[in-house]
């Protein structure tokens, strides 16, 4: 379970409809897409404006999600 499980589920459910905006950033709260924005900072700004300090997700819209890499082994806190 991730901390933003519900928002991630919403994002993946709506992804086919969002792909026209590939490369932009979606803001998701609960089961709603709040908007799509050109930059990460714009999306974050709108997320905080609309949700305040309540949880929300900012996710880049990609048909194939970009995977990040670390060349060293690290311990990660449980993502809950």
């Amino acid at each position: 379970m991730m901390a933003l499980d519900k928002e991630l589920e919403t994002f993946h459910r709506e992804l086919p409809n969002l792909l026209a905006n590939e490369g932009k950033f979606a803001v998701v709260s609960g089961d709603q897409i709040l908007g799509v924005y050109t930059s990460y900072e714009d999306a974050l700004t709108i997320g905080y404006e609309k949700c305040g300090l309540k949880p929300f997700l900012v996710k880049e819209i990609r048909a194939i999600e970009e995977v990040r890499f670390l060349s060293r082994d690290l311990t990660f806190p449980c993502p809950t």
Partner: protein
Amino acid sequence: MLDFVCGISKPRADALRKAGLPVPTPINLKGLVDTGASITCIDPSVLKSLGVVSTGAIPLHTPSTKPGIPHFANEFDISFALVHPQTTRTWFALRVIEAELAHQGIHALVGRDILQSCLMTYDGQAGTFALGF
């Protein structure tokens, strides 16, 4: 090693001010420059002291993840500043992930997401590097 200043992102600071809450003071930290990291990593103790919460999740491969099965890491928004007496370069909304680093004597891995905006020169014989930003 690289000295930098870590704080909450500008959008989160604005939200805290709007809610009438105090904005955490940025923290001076030491990070290890890691060209093998495609994203900057911050120790959870730092994120906790800043009071930030996750605003994302990203897939991540490390030497111990299996091919095609990435680990999903929580993502956080912070501000990140490289400070020099003559200039300061600030990222007002930087995406980072949390990773346990404090036991290695560092609080961050400074990844290529930062380095891609800088000029780094490594002098192997002298054991030094210079970072232009």
